[in-house]
């Protein structure tokens, strides 16, 4: 299968070269995907590395998928998660998931995605509940990643879902029901279809000079430290 994929890639590269003959470029960056002359490569050709044991893999294999693949045993209710959330999460995310300073807002924002200041939260934006379990387990709490037990992750996940009115306070989140939780924005995403613009490389009299207005300009400042107007907006990544 991948010998075929490789052949397609090589073919695609050749096509690109053929399309650009009118331009005189250096061609020194052509990636040589064929590698040096050598016998047909099969798995284990280089013979380096050591076999990963099931135990070694289990220790690092932490990823969870929307279909629930990867979830460990466990179950906990939103109620179970309330105190954990207060202790472990609220200092940055706020007791109600409202966010402190520029730390992420976790709850609210329903119906704001088309507004001028959309609030992208777990409830308003995230397509899958599995992402929440995965991320809390993977990277939270911020200062002590992967310090939570699986049981605690179930509890906090349930509580954040509760903060978003997606489950009841008594709801018990389990390995088996997590994938079936339907997030409000589940169908809000589509696969990249760019390019979505089609400008033209016009060279002369491309627009009416009299129509040009300066629509925005930051305050002029003297230092290289960034200063911005009070309307400054952070992208919130």
């Amino acid at each position, binding site marked *: 299968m991948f010998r075929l994929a490789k052949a397609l*890639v090589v073919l695609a590269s050749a096509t690109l070269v053929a399309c*650009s003959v009118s*331009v005189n*470029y*250096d061609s020194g*960056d052509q990636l040589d*995907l064929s*590698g040096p002359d050598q016998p047909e490569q*099969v798995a284990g050709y*280089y013979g*380096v*590395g*050591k076999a*990963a044991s099931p135990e070694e*893999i289990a220790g690092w294999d932490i*990823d*969870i*998928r929307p279909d629930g693949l990867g979830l460990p045993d466990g179950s906990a209710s939103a109620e179970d998660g309330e105190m954990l959330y207060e202790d472990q999460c609220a200092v940055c995310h706020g007791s109600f998931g409202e966010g402190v*300073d*520029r730390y992420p807002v976790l709850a609210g924002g329903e119906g704001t*995605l*088309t507004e001028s200041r*959309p609030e*992208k939260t777990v409830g308003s*934006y*995230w*397509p*899958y509940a599995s*992402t929440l379990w*995965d*991320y809390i387990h*993977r*990277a939270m709490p*911020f200062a002590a990643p992967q310090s939570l037990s699986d049981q605690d992750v179930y509890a906090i996940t349930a509580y954040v879902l509760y903060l978003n009115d997606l489950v009841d306070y008594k709801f018990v989140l389990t390995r088996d029901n997590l994938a079936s939780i339907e997030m409000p924005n589940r169908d*809000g*995403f*589509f*696969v*990249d279809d760019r390019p979505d613009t089609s*400008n033209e*490389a*016009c*060279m*002369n009299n491309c627009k009416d000079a009299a*129509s040009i*207005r300066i629509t*925005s*300009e*930051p305050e*002029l*400042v*003297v*230092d*290289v*430290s960034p200063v911005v107007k009070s*309307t*400054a907006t*952070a*992208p919130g*990544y």
Partner: protein
Amino acid sequence: MAAEGQKLPIAERRNFLKNGLMLAGGMLAGAAANAQASDKNLSLNLPPNLPKWSRSLGPGVLTNPYGKPSRFESHIVRRNVPWLTADRIASISFTPLAELSGIITPNSLVFERHHAGIPDIDPEQHRLMLHGLVDRPIIFTLDDLRRMPSTSVIRFLECPANGGMEWRAAQMDALQFTHGMLSCCEWTGVLLSTLLQEVGVQESAAWVLAEGADGAHLSRSIPMHKAMDDALIVYAQNGEPLRPEQGYPLRLINPGWEGNTCVKWLRRLEVGDAAWYHREETAKYTDLLADGRARKFSFVQECNSVVTFPCPEKPPTEKGRYELQGLAWSGRGKIKQVDVSFDGGVNWRRAHLKGLVLAKALTRFSLDWDWDGGPALIQSRAVDQTGYVQPTYTQLREARGLSSIYHKNAIHTWRLHEGGKVTNVQIS
């Protein structure tokens, strides 16, 4: 204008400081003469005088075993925008593009983006685990990877949020902040396709999850077609081991794709039959459009360009002929042409592509330019080998609205004021 006394443009201010340093040095030779010198042309180090450094010995070899820039270039550093993020642990710093030449970004100046700070990794104790839908799950050491065939390529690396603060309006005051989440290095490592062949990928494989060893364990789902194309597992950058900020000792490079997919401190690759939809490919790094829907897996960094001289940090200093310079790049391949306008996009002149023109790399362009001292609205517009033309703000906003955050590649405008000040503007 009297109030402008303290508002020296950056470059003038820098010259003032530099002159001050030169004068301070000259003091040793002739304090009286220099005390009165207000013009650097009066320095005792200039013709016809013999500079003091020509009449003495300097420090010997190994004064700086690794080496460092001249003390006169200490202003060339990464900088951050404090209000962007809650702290500096999960934050970003910017490359000083105005100060760089050619297409290679020095390792010390490559912008940083961390989600849990910079881990301090002992390479002897670092491992890359490759498992999932493979015949032979393997754990590689750095030495193992260095035994395999290496590939070196020059490729840009850009955060998809580069310029993201400008979606609604011009608000950053320097090139470093409007475009500085951008760099270009020579990366050396092993093709991911080679590693995948080594472990034997199974028929149902469609995606590869890449995961970091930092506290964020940052993870992204990479489609198999990219993994089998030009994705690289790199251990070196511009000839030396990766810097800790750039993923030491091992990172993924997906040429032309979002910097965020180029997972740093890479510890694990898992082959699977579906995407994982983790936080950095759902909550973040998706592009919210005006209708409330969002693009996902928007991997490619589309064609973009910016004029690097003149710019707010480097305004012209006097009337006359200059070489205007800039950078263009495209995640879809090579830059085909760059045009420059001085009148806000009414008329354009074809720029010269300088030096190496490489696929998915920064490409430097230039244009001889006679500045008459008057105002101008300076823009650059790049076209890549696919024929894609960098869009205007109007076109980009019509297509996406204002809430996308990422992938802002609109034609940028510098306003050159009469007298030489340069500011960041957006125009109709």
